């Protein structure tokens, strides 16, 4: 199982990136060296998302900048993100777009092993020291030591809230240090008629964020990764404890958590209907798209400590980037575009279009970081171990088909927890070896 080694080697991978990002601002550009061999031809690019999303507009802006620089036309199409992920293997075996936004971890490495993704090690090499060694390591396929994704951005999963809402309630989430503090905060927000802990799990993956963090807080990063790779059992009392904690949050959730997806959660926060929300901070782009005031009001803090032994030493921080299809019509063009995405010009174009993501590259001028981004870095910096999120830290036929429905069943009927966990373990045991 490729992920086992991946899990260990990836420990504290991205922390270096965070520090690198802060420290190496404005490092020398190595891009001049690659302009000798010219890549030509139209490049097709898949955007994961709706065209109306703020993120899609940023994607198009970067692709436009590439066209401006090279004269190569980029044809972008937006595809529903879940559909693209679900049909990924089929799409890649057909006539896929040359490049596409993608995510590091199991979803890249397993497909690279199957020969569906093009090797972009040369492009990673060209980007050179602008990418921290840690980020490159996070993007490396442990099976062959090559990279199949140009890492561009990453984001922390944490507790998000609106500063104004909390101030109105006379609360200060910056002070939630322990589990009891979190419960008290949820109680207080709920008492004022707001949703205490916003949850939307209709998509089946959203609740994984809460599961991940409670497991890492209670049992530590190593146990979490081992559990996801079959070295620990779901029937373990330690896992039951995670669900017991999760169960304590259910009374504070909006009652319709199986009716809304992550974007419903986002809207709860956007419309000031909720107190805290456990989510990856990528959605901040949508706050900025709504208004600068909404964006400035958004804040993130680390999930509080539960077990003093582990403190707040772990976090989910998925690494995103651009991958190139091995079966694309213009593989070299795809690679060139992917490299552009990781270069200073690409990042500048994204930032100019309103991107609030944290870029891996040291070319990204951290002096332009706004307060929220600095806070994101602080949240990341507080962690020693970085997970990629449950559906990237474990095999794909386990995350979606088994853990997703199990979490939904648990949220629906928390009393069935023992039966649910026994079943998850049984389904893991029934999986064929990779």
């Amino acid at each position, binding site marked *: 199982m490729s992920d086992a080694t991946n899990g260990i080697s990836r420990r504290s991978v991205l922390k270096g990136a965070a520090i690198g990002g802060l420290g190496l601002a404005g490092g020398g550009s190595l891009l001049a060296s690659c302009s000798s061999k010219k890549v030509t031809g139209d490049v097709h690019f898949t955007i994961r998302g709706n065209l109306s999303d703020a993120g899609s507009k940023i994607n198009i802006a970067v692709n436009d900048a590439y066209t401006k620089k090279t004269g190569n036309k980029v044809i972008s199409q937006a595809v529903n993100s*879940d559909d693209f992920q679900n049909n990924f293997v089929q799409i890649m075996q057909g006539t896929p777009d040359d490049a596409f936004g993608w995510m590091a971890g199991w979803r890249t490495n397993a497909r690279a092993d199957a020969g569906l993704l093009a090797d972009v090690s040369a492009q990673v090499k060209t980007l050179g020291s602008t990418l921290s060694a840690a980020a490159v390591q996070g993007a490396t396929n442990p099976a062959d030591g090559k990279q199949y994704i140009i890492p561009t951005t990453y984001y922390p999963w944490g507790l998000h809230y609106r500063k104004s809402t909390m101030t109105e309630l006379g609360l200060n989430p910056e002070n939630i240090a322990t589990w009891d503090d979190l419960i008290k905060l949820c109680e207080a927000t709920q008492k004022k008629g707001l949703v205490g802990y916003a949850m939307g799990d209709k998509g089946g993956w959203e609740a994984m964020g809460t599961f991940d963090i409670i497991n890492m807080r209670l049992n530590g990063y190593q146990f979490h990764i081992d559990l996801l790779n079959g070295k620990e059992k779901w029937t373990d009392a330690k896992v039951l404890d995670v669900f017991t904690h999760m169960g304590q949050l259910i009374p504070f959730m909006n009652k319709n958590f199986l009716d809304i997806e992550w974007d419903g959660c986002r809207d*709860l926060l956007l419309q000031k209907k909720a107190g805290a929300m456990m989510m990856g901070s990528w959605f901040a782009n949508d706050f900025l798209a709504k208004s600068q005031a909404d964006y400035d009001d958004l804040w993130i803090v680390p999930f509080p400590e539960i077990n003093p032994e582990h403190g707040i030493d772990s976090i989910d921080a998925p690494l995103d980037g651009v991958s190139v299809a091995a079966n694309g019509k213009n593989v070299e063009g795809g690679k060139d575009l992917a490299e552009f995405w990781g270069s200073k010009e690409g990042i500048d174009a994204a930032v100019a279009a309103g991107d609030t993501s944290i870029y891996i590259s040291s070319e990204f001028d951290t002096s332009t970081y706004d307060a929220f981004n600095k806070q994101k870095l602080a949240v990341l910096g507080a962690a020693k171990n970085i997970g990629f999120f449950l559906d990237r830290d474990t095999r794909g036929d386990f995350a979606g088909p088994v853990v997703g429905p199990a979490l939904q069943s648990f949220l629906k009927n928390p009393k069935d927890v023992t039966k649910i966990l026994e079943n998850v373990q049984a389904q893991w045991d029934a999986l*064929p070896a990779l």
Partner: protein
Amino acid sequence: MKTTPANKNIRRRRSLSRNDRFTLAAFIGIPTLMQIIFLWLPALITIILSFTYWNGINVGDIKWAGLANYRNIFFGTPVFYEALKNNAIWLLWFTFIATPLGILLAYQIDRKIKGHKLFETVFYIPVVLSLAIIGIIWNFMFQPGGFVQGLMGRDISNAVSIWGNYSINTYVIMGVASWRHIGYIMLLYLAGLKSVDPSLREASAIDGATEWQTFRKIVLPTMRPVNIIIVVITIIESLRAFDLVYIIYGTSTAWPLLNILVFQNFAGQGISMKGAAYAVILLVLCVGPILLYLRSVFKEDLK
């Protein structure tokens, strides 16, 4: 052109020129070939693959798994039984509620009750929409922040839980699916009713039969071919249900159906051929009752 049965065969054989024969062969041969290539061959491959482990990429990686995928489904996947239950509910609902309603509507419209043209149009409109579109429409209506929630004055935080409320969502989905199915059945039945000789009904009326007796003893038996089609359509529609639920729930299996499981497990996430095994189970379920039914029907016709 009328011929006596005696010389019919001879004349037909003679009238087939080389050209005719070629045309006939092409008309029968090409569809048969396409049927084999695009239907029977993939079905056969699916059946074979259901006994293997494979990630669907390199043919060389296929590994024999025996009955492991089936064992996994029957003994290790509780969501399978939930899906089976939902498919069964779908079938029962369509058989005992939606289809009879469609027949009732057709019968009333055929009797030219007041405003029958209007009813016909109203109930027919959903039939032109695909279930996927119907899913989009009703999802938009009921989801938090949707139209119906807006009418009730609910925002996202206190929206009435519908798709995620497991004491009602099954009935809501059935209602939405019936919205189209009733019109579909009505249309089919109406076409059949038009072909029933009105003198039969007049005769039974003169003999003093009630409306119900006429329907049961006269109309229903004369409509036998349409009835068969409707039974088959009802079974098939219930087993192949997918698009409506996929639009609402995606592959999260929050309201599983067999077809959703086929899709979820085929979608390239896995390395077992569990999806193929689900497809085979579905195939058996589909083929079984239909073959049985058609056989009994043909037997009776031969008598």
